[in-house]
């Protein structure tokens, strides 16, 4: 949910129901959400601007590697399920130096409000003037919260069971500020910026999400014993916001201890909030713990825009165009997109079909240790939708 939607929807409904029956609010949201695609919006939340004639327009950035083929599978599945979403495809060529492509993509996202994106490759051997296109997109659109929900899926064998961790990562500042200089030849300084505003903002987002999703515990991940001022400020902001949520337990953990705890006992974590780089590490560790990069979707939320992608943002160059990529992560990301557009019925239908397919071991793709192909998985999902869903195109 974008910041605005979480605030306004829960804010609008709370005074109506909280006096009488606190439990009803959540039930109401579920019932209301499922029926929303069949009736006009009544809440104070303004849907994304491109909703016209009952159909949404969503920007699709195919990206590199496995991105284009996964994007095609999403379109295929949506067409099959008669989802009222039209994709506006914007290609970003990562091999050219000009930033026109990514600026066009950003403009398209501003227009449509929502996007589904594959990872755009960054050649790290190019000079610093060539910035990471993905980072540029996130910072320009101010998509300040990266949300990744890692849960153990039935049917996927992993070393640890019963993992259910939500990771909220600050997405725009910290070590990813791209501010570097070489004052003296051979000595490079890279600046890590932590600001009070952005730290308060992400902490606020984390606690609101925790409250909305019924999470009991929020853990802030930091390295304030070494970076006393920077991470110290982040921690202070989290503590400040925590004081406004007395029903949620707040604690903090140093990042190296966090990774150690994650590989031995990941079940102890509930919701975690952290600055950019630690978020990168922790989200990849958690994705690995629940089964790998092919399973976890990711969402980037800003005040006005939302961009959905695979959680671990891999390009998958080595497996591109071989029909072996795992489409689960991208398809689950498209379900998050549908939830964002308030098309909850479609989202649940497709999500149910995806999860039932993932639990079938014989369809597992190479990353899960199987030999299934991407198209087999997508076909199976479509079959599952057809057997349970209301109306679909004939295959």
């Amino acid at each position: 949910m974008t910041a605005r939607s979480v605030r306004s929807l829960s804010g609008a409904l709370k005074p109506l129901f909280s006096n009488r029956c606190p439990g009803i609010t959540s039930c109401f949201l579920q019932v209301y959400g499922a029926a929303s695609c069949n009736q006009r919006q009544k809440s104070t939340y303004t849907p994304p601007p491109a909703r016209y004639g009952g159909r949404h327009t969503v920007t699709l950035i195919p990206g590199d590697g496995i991105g284009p083929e996964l994007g095609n599978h999403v379109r295929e599945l949506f067409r099959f399920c008669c989802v009222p979403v039209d994709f506006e495809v914007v290609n970003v060529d990562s091999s050219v130096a000009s930033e026109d492509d990514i600026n066009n993509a950003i403009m398209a996202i501003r227009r449509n409000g929502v996007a589904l994106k594959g990872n755009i490759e960054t050649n790290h051997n190019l000079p610093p003037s060539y910035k990471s296109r993905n980072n540029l997109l996130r910072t320009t659109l101010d998509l300040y919260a990266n949300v990744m929900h890692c849960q153990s899926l039935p049917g996927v064998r992993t070393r640890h069971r019963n993992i259910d961790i939500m990771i909220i990562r600050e997405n725009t500042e910290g070590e990813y500020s791209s501010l570097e200089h070489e004052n003296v030849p051979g000595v490079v300084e890279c600046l890590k910026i932590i600001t009070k505003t952005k730290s308060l903002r992400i902490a606020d987002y984390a606690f609101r999400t925790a409250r909305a999703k019924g999470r009991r515990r929020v853990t802030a991940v930091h390295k304030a014993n070494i970076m006393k001022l920077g991470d110290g400020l982040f921690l202070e902001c989290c503590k400040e916001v925590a004081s406004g949520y007395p029903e949620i337990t707040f604690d903090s953990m140093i990042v190296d201890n966090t990774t150690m705890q994650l590989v031995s006992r990941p079940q102890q974590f509930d919701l975690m909030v952290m600055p950019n780089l630690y978020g990168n590490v922790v989200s990849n560790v958690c994705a690995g713990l629940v089964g790998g990069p092919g399973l976890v979707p990711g969402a980037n939320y800003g005040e006005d825009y939302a961009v959905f992608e695979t959680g671990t943002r891999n390009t998958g160059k080595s497996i591109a165009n071989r029909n072996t990529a795992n489409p689960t992560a991208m398809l689950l990301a498209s379900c998050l997109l549908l939830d964002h557009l308030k098309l909850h019925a479609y989202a649940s239908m497709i999500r149910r079909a995806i999860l039932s397919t993932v639990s079938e071991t014989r369809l597992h793709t190479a990353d899960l240790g199987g030999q299934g192909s991407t198209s087999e998985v997508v076909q199976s999902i479509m079959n599952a939708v057809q057997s349970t869903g209301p109306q679909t195109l004939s295959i």
Partner: protein
Amino acid sequence: NRFQLEMQTVTLIPGDGIGPEISSAVMKIFETAKAPIRWEERNVTAIKGPGGRWMIPPDAKESMDKSKIGLKGPLKTPIAAGHPSMNLLLRKTFDLYANVRPCISIEGYKTPYTDVNLVTIRENTEGEYSGIEHVIVDGVVQSIKLITEDASRRIAEYAFEYARNNQRNSVTAVHKANIMRMSDGLFLRKCREVAENYKDIKFTEMYLDTVCLNMVQDPTQFDVLVMPNLYGDILSDLCAGLIGGLGVTPSGNIGANGVAIFESVHGTAPDIAGLDLANPTALLLSAVMMLRHMGLHDYGNKIQTACFDTIRDKKVLTKDLGGNSKCSEFTADICRRIQDLD
């Protein structure tokens, strides 16, 4: 072999908390193994030297400068003591630029990960831990990550030398040059340059997030990892978690001028100090690492085999390993096995 029989001096810093008892356990085991080590015990506390700068006691420094090899137990971290941590002081005094942690699965100490066999080599002097921070305006803080050509080259050279001396096949540089183009780019360039001189060792580069992702799914694909300070901190603790935690992980710090200090990285455990309950495995494995560094591979292998056999046998394990034996019983069992091996 004349070199093996010549006694070498090692500076022993027992440390605080459980430090003294695990140090005596290690000394006892070494005595049983008849390792040619002469221990010189020294204490390390921060004292104010001339000019107001904090430093370690001069006799400790002198001993270390002469012996060049040190074994250190856990040191207490002072809060609001006015002086920096002892570990930091030692690092600065001897320019300990490389932190080496071999993470090898211990047969008999079950973790969800088996067959882990990798080494993390972390640059220990600069990077994100430079300690340079400023408040630009109220509410905006800037931390500076420093990467220099010299430090990067030094750590890369050490990593490849280590790989060659320990029969390891590949070295992987861990970085985030897609985002931090100049700093990690410099680190990467230096690693590539050094790799040119070590054509017998395979060199690869991998993003930090990809390493984390793959490490928790299949740690067997990694061999030697070399990286800057922060990534090293996180990854070395991640790998320690894979094999069972800090209580069983050895660690070594390599400094300029041939100084090397091997240490256990766990805490001082004040609650069990003096009760003969501590687990000396971490310090013992660090001491084995020290023996290998000194070229005394036979003694190192003998002691390590005895230690692993004891753990695999599960009869006399300390509490943290899942048993309820005393430290002295654990030590005695290892000594007995060493005598049997002879």
